[in-house]
């Protein structure tokens, strides 16, 4: 092969390997800075103790409350975003005519383009006082507020990926169902959705990963209390919010610093598992 050809090909190799290097860089930096937290606490206490007092003496690094906070707001977000996102996908793909479709799609894309910090601002400055008024709760910055905002943020993820999945369902299946005397709704529920199942489930898992990792919204609107919530109107302190809020106030190399990286490891593992599920389980079954 020509020399120039070889050089060119090598550049493409190197670029591709960079992506692997970056991924390993992320994993290594998390583990390098995060594993030392085990010098100060056991893995059992870290994961299953709800006492997060990183600045007390002696400090306590139990992140159960933070994990609980993350799961509460994420599940809340999914309760909102699954019906809205899947509903939007079904409506756009199966019911809307071409013109309505062309209006709705960019509107939903617009939701995806809004920076998370602006969502956070909206949650803090508008939604929080609104919730206090409507629900008569003492604090408007709580798990409920964060769930609503996160839920809306996840809508475009679920809707665009589900819509892709629905649109790859061959028309012949819809025709077969309609020709057998099923109406549109029955066709959607019994044929189209089941046929697009793997894509729809992937979109929900992806939405979950996005919601559990989203930082700015939970940092600004979840309320910040490191406790296991009794109600959806309690303030919580999800994992990403904890890292973002405390990293700036911690000296590098302290136990607290390592503990924050430890939280990031847990967060990474959760999102990585969800990616693997999509990659190997859901998408594989499609074939």
């Amino acid at each position, binding site marked *: 092969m020509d020399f120039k050809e070889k050089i060119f090909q090598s550049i493409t190799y190197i*670029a*591709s390997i960079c992506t692997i290097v970056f991924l390993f860089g992320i994993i290594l930096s998390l583990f390098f800075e995060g594993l030392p937290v085990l010098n100060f606490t056991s893995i059992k206490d870290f994961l299953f103790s709800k006492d997060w007092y990183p600045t007390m003496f002696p400090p306590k690094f139990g992140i159960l409350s933070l994990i609980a906070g993350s799961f509460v707001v994420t599940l809340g977000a999914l309760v909102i975003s699954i019906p809205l996102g899947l*509903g939007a996908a079904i409506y756009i793909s199966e019911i809307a005519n071409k013109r309505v479709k062309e209006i709705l799609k960019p509107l939903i894309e617009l939701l995806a383009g809004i920076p998370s*910090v602006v969502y956070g601002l909206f949650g803090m400055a508008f939604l929080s006082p609104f919730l206090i008024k409507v629900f008569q709760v003492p604090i408007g910055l709580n798990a409920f507020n964060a769930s609503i905002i996160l839920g809306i943020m996840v809508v475009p993820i679920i809707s665009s990926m589900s819509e892709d999945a629905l649109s790859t369902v061959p028309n012949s299946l819809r025709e077969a169902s309609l020709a057998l005397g099923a109406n549109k*709704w029955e066709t959607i529920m019994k044929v189209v959705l089941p046929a697009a199942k793997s894509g729809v489930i992937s979109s929900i898992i992806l939405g979950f*990963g996005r919601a559990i*990792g989203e930082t700015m919204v939970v940092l600004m609107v979840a309320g910040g209390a490191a406790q296991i919530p009794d109600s959806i109107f309690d303030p919580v302190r999800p994992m*990403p919010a904890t890292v*973002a809020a405390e990293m700036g106030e911690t000296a590098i190399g302290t136990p607290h610093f390592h503990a924050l990286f430890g939280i990031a490891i847990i967060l990474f593992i959760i999102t990585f598992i969800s990616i693997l599920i999509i990659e190997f389980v859901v998408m594989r079954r499609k074939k």
Partner: protein
Amino acid sequence: MTNIRKLKSSIGINLLRLFILLTVFFLFLFLYVIFAKGGSVVSWEFLTESPKRFMTEGGIYPAIVGTFWLTVLSIGFALPLGIFTAIFMTSYAKPYWLVRIVRVAINTLAGVPSIIYGLFGLTVFVRLFNFGVSLLSGALTLGVLALPVIINASEEAIRSVPGDFRDASLALGATKRQTILRVILPTALPNILTGAIISIGRVAGETAPIMFTAATFYTRLLPKSAMDEVMALPYHIYALMTEGAHPAKQVPMAYGTAVVLLALVLLVSTVAIVIRYRIRKKRKW
């Protein structure tokens, strides 16, 4: 029975309508609140002056400049890497195991929470490479974050180039490299750029990755070099809402900054949509 079926069907379809109306309603409410509360704050001075009196007065010029440089540098870093990776994935794609690993890496990078990018940037760029909290560290961090978006867009763009073009070029005796550089890339370029522009919108709005790598709370100065700390629009909104002692004055400033950031992001994505539309219209194949 038929009536029950009809009833179910109409309830179902109207429920879908309700869901989509709710989503659209939220979007308009959101845009209305931001623009109504922030629109009046935005003025020429707001755009061109530095913040004064601990951000309670003055403008956001340094944050605009900071966001501009962060975005330009990060895309400048990620775009070539992304395009070359996309070329590998589409045109060389050997050995297969490497393709598979790169694919998993891209998908994983795309799903990693942005705060983790922040920690990565802090560990690697700020500390290991000793770039400090700086424009450079922030831009590199954002670049890594934008990489999967750019790769995916470029791959899709390259794959949409008809195989006939490639075959014709190869049949004329061009090498693979010549074919890629002279036929495939030029044809795919507009679509690649659309992808790049979309990632600009994403990068410009990110906050968490720059919190510990580039952003500073308050400076009246503009960055003189890539090693300086910078202000940035998204971080500025966050800082105005959570720091400082004068919320009554800061909240309107935050809304104003949000208007500028949103306008920027919307402008950028509109440009992308227009370009995409133009390409589709012009395309003859």
